[in-house]
């Protein structure tokens, strides 16, 4: 039961990752692309967690935690760049 659920979930996450990439290419504006990247971060978290559940180990959760935290920083930095050009002022 769990295996089936994980397989379905993983497939969906993979599809959404590909769609993210498509959005990243298509744009058309910079915020679109940044948002696509940010969504990729989120989908990666899902992928890692799913992988952790499937292999029954908590070892990968830190990676997910880090992506969650640092992905935000990365997205925020890119937005700041568009708005002000200068990250640290």
């Amino acid at each position, binding site marked *: 039961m769990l295996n089936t659920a994980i397989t379905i979930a993983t497939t969906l996450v993979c599809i959404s*990752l590909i769609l993210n990439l498509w959005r990243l290419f298509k744009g058309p504006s910079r915020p679109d692309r940044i948002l696509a990247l940010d969504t990729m971060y989120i989908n990666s978290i899902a992928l890692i967690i799913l992988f952790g559940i499937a292999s029954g180990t908590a070892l990968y959760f830190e990676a997910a935690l880090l992506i969650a935290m640092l992905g935000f*920083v990365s997205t925020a*930095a890119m937005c700041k*760049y568009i708005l002000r050009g200068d990250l*640290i002022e």
Partner: protein
Amino acid sequence: MNLLWVVLLPLIGTLVPLLTERFGRNVCAFSVALLPAWSLILVLMHVGEIFDGEAIRQTIEWIPSMGLDLSFRLDGLSLLFLLLILGIGLLIILYARYYLSDKDSMGQFYAYLILFMSAMVGIVISNNMIQLWMFWELTSISSFLLISFWSHKPDARKGARMALTVTGTGGLALLAGLLLLGNIVGSYDLDTVLASGDLIRAHAAYPIALVLVLLGAFTKSAQFPFHFWLPHAMAAPTPVSAYLHSATMVKAGIFLLCRFYPALAGTDLWFMIVSLTGLITLLLGAYIALFKHDLKGLLAYSTISHLGLITLLLGLNSDLAAVAAVFHIINHATFKASLFMAAGIIDHETGSRDMRKLNGLMKYMPHTATLAIVAALSMAGVPLLNGFLSKEMFFAETLDQSMLGSLSWMIPLLATVGAAFSVAYSLRFIHDVFFNGEPIDLPKTPHEPPRYMKVPVEILVALCLAVGIFPAYLVGDLLHAAAFSVLANDVPMHSLSIWHGFNIPLFMSFLAMVGGITIYYNRRHLFEFQAQFNEPDAKYIFEGAVQSLIKFTQRIMATLENGSLQRYVFLMLLFTLVMSAYPLFELTQNAGSRPQLPIDGVAITAALLLIISAIATVIWHRRRFLSLIYLSVVGLIVSLAFAKFSAPDLALTQLSVEIVTIILLLLALYFLPQSTQKESSNRRLSIDLTVSALIGCVIGTICFAMLTTPLNSISDFFIANSKTGGGGTNVVNVILVDFRGFDTLGEITVLGIAALGIFKLIAKMRIYVPTRDDKGRPWTKDRHPLMLAMVSQSLLPLALLVSVYIFLRGHNLPGGGFIAGLITSVAIIQQYVANGVLWIKPRIKVDYQWLIASGILMATATGLGSWIFDKPFLSTWFDHFHLPWVGEFELASAMIFDLGVYLTVVGAVLLILANLGKLTTSERVDNKENV
């Protein structure tokens, strides 16, 4: 006796003048003399043992694990040279006290002089060839400093540079020669090398080793064709010339010949090179000396000539000749040092060294004149003076050889000619300077120098006389001991007396006297003859040679390194391709026996994403921001791959490095054009594409072959020893802080240095700050959006908590100081982004440079700490403890080391990013408007 102190005392003495300079000239000179005098007393205490034929040795362990010892030996030859170096050195210290003017820095001068003295002492008492060479180089460097002491004079600078280049090049040749000798014998120990003369002479590499060692000796002792540097070194203050260029430095080459005499001499090759070089130098020096109008120039060429004489004697391969050579070393040092000092006095008191102006000084300075005349007569080889004795021995030896076959008679003849010129220039020195009418417009009215300035000259001249009259009584034992160590066996019978009866050498002396007087009497014709030749100035030739060498190397540099980064990468990849593709041709099958992992949908998706975004990065590389976003995708997928293939440590590191890199690139991108023009031609593009595609194929093949072949990697060792030896179950972290702790220490040091370098580079840098974005829209007015500021602030404690967690568990589970440091710095950078520099300033009062320093110090101190417990550097200690509530936990010294890593990483990242960001804080126009 502690031989180490003989060299150590003067070495310590180098600092003395710098400390005592402020207490006045007398105190300074006196204090400078103390340590060398002490050293001399140490040496003198052992004269008895040396005269009995003993050699004193001492070896001190220095780096025993590498077989490096400090090794000293005091034998007759060392004793002779030590007496010259320290004895004449002390006289020079007294002399320089009066010679130096108020404008010269006395402390600096004495410090250089004593440094040189220590180096010379080191050469003569070393019992290890590499140690000897080290001191040898030190003499080159310290003599450079001494010659260029009056560095405001271009002559001094040029002369010093020339001397350093020539003697330094010779030093390199000598090193090669000594290494070769060490290789032949199997030891760098001088005792062993000297005892294996037969082995060396029979070895196939003997000619090469001999030529290399001789190059070192000849450059140092100003032998033809390397003699040209010595006259230009006369730009030095006269005490330096008197010390270096008469008694010590130029004698270092002679010392080397004497020292290696038992190991290298005795072959035809030795005879041909050494004696012929000596003969040419003897004649050339004596001839040119006559035409020099400069007092010191005359003495310099005369020194070259006398050094040639000693070299010639050593080259004759006869035991008695070697004795004569050693004797002449003593005599030349005494009369030449006194002559240089007299020349210095004359220069000092008249303001000129030009012999065309200096005339009739006998009337003005009778005392100095008498001393100089006696010394010059000794130089000419007049009986009852020491120069006569060694010259007689020299003549006798030139007669007693038959190495040139039927042409052997030429050597005594040429020796007599050389001696005649020697008489002629000595006469010129005496007659031109002290008689010959009145002085011609001298800058100063000549008068006697201060009383004590003459004392060193008096002592040396008295020695010339005393040795000349009672040779056997005064220097017989010393000469015997020195000759004993040169020959390394029994010294042949020789008689040190003035009168040997009417014989050929006496007749040759007589001929030389008459010849010399005749030459001097007819000097006008000779001068006219010589004036026809356009004498080349060695300075211009040398400078020309140096300049063309520089031009040549610059041309090579310009061809190889033209500044195009594309070209460097292209060449590097091309070379990699050639080197790595070749072995692949040999490999018939690249798929190994390891089973391949099953392919699933996630892997395919990730690979697809990775490939597409990597290609996109390249395609859109001219639109920089877009390219950066694609690059982020690449980084993300790579971290996912690390996580998937059981490398959680790498995944965590990759993720954090990724973010720091993106922030760094964004910071830099602000100052750069947002898009670039197409710069490469299509042809160039196709070449580059081909090369990179080929590289990709080759690397891919290698990876595939590596991954499918079962290999025994070193990881088994680490996995087995991680828990038992390092106390942690996370092998990656244990490798970082324990197995390879020393590497990590080096890496964080490099990181710290790089951060400081970047900080220094970007400090006060003024750069273009765009006021609009690439579409021409003005920047938004909202500098620090409230939402972002609030979210970031609440993120900070969370992020710090995560980094503490990652740090603490790092030893046993994925994590560690490096990742924790990156997380902390990213969290702080986020505060900079969200709230700005002015907001951070009062809140984080940590100096990042200080943070880096304390991190590195902490890591180093942890490593050093293991020394206290008598363990090797960076040994780990760990144990398990139990606390109520907390439970059992482990403490390891590696954690302190890891903390050092953490601090360094935080400091380095923040120092770079925050300072790059701060560049604009005061620059931005719209900032000032808003504030």
